[in-house]
């Protein structure tokens, strides 16, 4: 398991972070997060299942924010899961690779996060359950300066927050 996502609620404000073997997570909050995904992968209602079996992220072509065919399949699965598991709201994080300036990449990441939001909304997920944010090129998960890394970093990641817990 290379990646994980965890969530917690603190005084009504949502903090979410993704972590991986290359990043230490804790966006903005500086908090440390565990490395185990929530719940069992075998449990189809668990965040672990959402992440691993459905897929928590989609990737984009260079400088593009339109969804790929493979991306739509992942998002169809996410939408179905979210419709089944109404206790969860989501934060969609848009990211860019390091090719490009900081401000442009922030705007590009926002376009990507919004593309996911619009697709999930169109599939019936209530807009009130979806928040978006962009990290531009600030948080790559693969660190090399080649297309093999860039193609992973140009991503939108859907992070779950359980409102019922």
């Amino acid at each position, binding site marked *: 398991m290379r990646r994980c996502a965890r969530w917690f609620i603190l005084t009504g*404000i*949502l*903090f*979410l972070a993704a972590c991986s073997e*290359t*990043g*230490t*997570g804790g*966006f*903005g*909050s*500086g908090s440390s997060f565990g490395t185990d995904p929530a719940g069992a992968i075998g449990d189809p209602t668990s965040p672990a299942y959402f992440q691993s079996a459905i897929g928590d992220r989609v990737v984009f072509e260079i400088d593009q*924010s339109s969804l790929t065919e493979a991306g739509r399949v992942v998002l169809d699965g996410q939408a179905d899961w979210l419709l089944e598991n109404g206790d969860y709201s989501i934060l969609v994080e848009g990211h860019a690779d*390091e*090719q*490009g*300036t*900081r*401000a*442009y990449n*922030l*705007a*590009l990441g*926002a*376009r990507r*996060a*919004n*593309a996911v*939001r*619009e697709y999930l909304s169109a599939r019936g997920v209530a807009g009130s359950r979806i*928040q*978006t*944010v*962009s*990290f531009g090129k*600030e*948080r*790559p*998960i693969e*660190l*090399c*300066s080649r297309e093999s890394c860039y193609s992973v970093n140009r991503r939108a990641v859907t992070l779950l927050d359980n409102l019922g817990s």
Partner: protein
Amino acid sequence: MKMMRYFGKGTLLFRLVLLIQLAFFATLGAAAPLRLEITEGVVEPLAFAAPAFIAENAGGADYASQLAELVVQDLTSSGLFRAIPSRAHISKITSFSSPVQFSDWAAINAQALIAGAVTAEAGGQITVKFRVYDVFAGQEMGQGLQFTGRADGWRRIAHKVADVVYSRITGETGYFDSRVVFVSETGRKGSRKKRLAVMDYDGENVQYLTDSSALVLAPRFSPSGDKLLYTSYESGFPRIYLMDVGSARRRVLQNSNGTMSFAPRFSPDGNSVVYSLEKGGNTDIYIMSLSSGKQRRLTNSPAIETAPSFSPDGTQVVFESDRSGDPQLYVMPARGGSAKRVSFGNGRYGTPVWSPRGDMIAFTKQSKGRFHIGVMRVDGSQERLLTASFLDEGPSWSPNGRVIMFARETQGANGASSLYSVDVSGRNLKPVRTPDGASDPAWSPLGG
């Protein structure tokens, strides 16, 4: 710190004299015997001598050498001046008031001579006085000046002396008594810790303004140098903050849910902020009054519009937009309205910054897998690329519009970002020392 005092006379009189002198030099250039014209062609650095300042009392001795050394360092760092080392000096300045043996300085080909003296005063103050001589004309350039300030601020006094010398010889204002705000970076790529820091232009006196608990980006000085705008993720989302530099107190400026705000810059009068606001995936440019908080949209297109920067007269804004398909530079009236594209070269253009002189726009250009810092006239003509590397980004002008500082990031998993400066001519590229990694530099106004 007490500012300049004309010997025996008032500040105003001195300034008036200086103004008249500058105006005279500007119109009748031939009347000034020693003058270094800063041009975009090749410049032979002007040779000067700055012997250790004279210590006029025991307390002054602690500062006599280092003051002269820092003046030398400032002037030579500009690339416009070359110091003749003290071991080559055949004459000594032993008294600030005795006549200068011009022939001894001419013999070693010093075109300019800086003579200074320092006195320790009561209450931890020092007074530094100095004169600038045109060696071959055998006369003083302008009048002697003195600065009084705190002894522990001796570096700032030396920077002020260097600014006066630079100004006397080039006819332009200097930039040595200035600061740079930047993002200090530690930790590995992918999990970088970032915090705001401010330092003297030469990398000294670094102070941190935020901790690294929240990602911070792109700080910018106010025109008066006492405030900063920057972007922080402390709410979990990028938002624009206004900070008082002295107290490091801050307040959020743009806090609408479901939006992101970033890339802020002050208007030249300091009363407004121009910035990018993202709603529903679309980023446009807005302006906000700092007094009323009232916001107004300046662009309205489905494209990405970001990185706005005012012209120094406040009438226009340059920004980047990908409305043509690729990011390019556009200029629009500061009240909004139709924008004119100004960049037409091959490649992607971003982060435009209007020069403080008003004559040029500096930018980042991405072309054929390389990044460049470049400049162009404000109509887009005469584009010149000053640098090239894997990733150069985010130019910031020195207060006199002669030097550009920017961030350079090296490639690969161990890539790191650091600061560089380069002359607007493309010469004198060199690193700016910082304690850790650094990005997003922004220069203060002179004396800020």
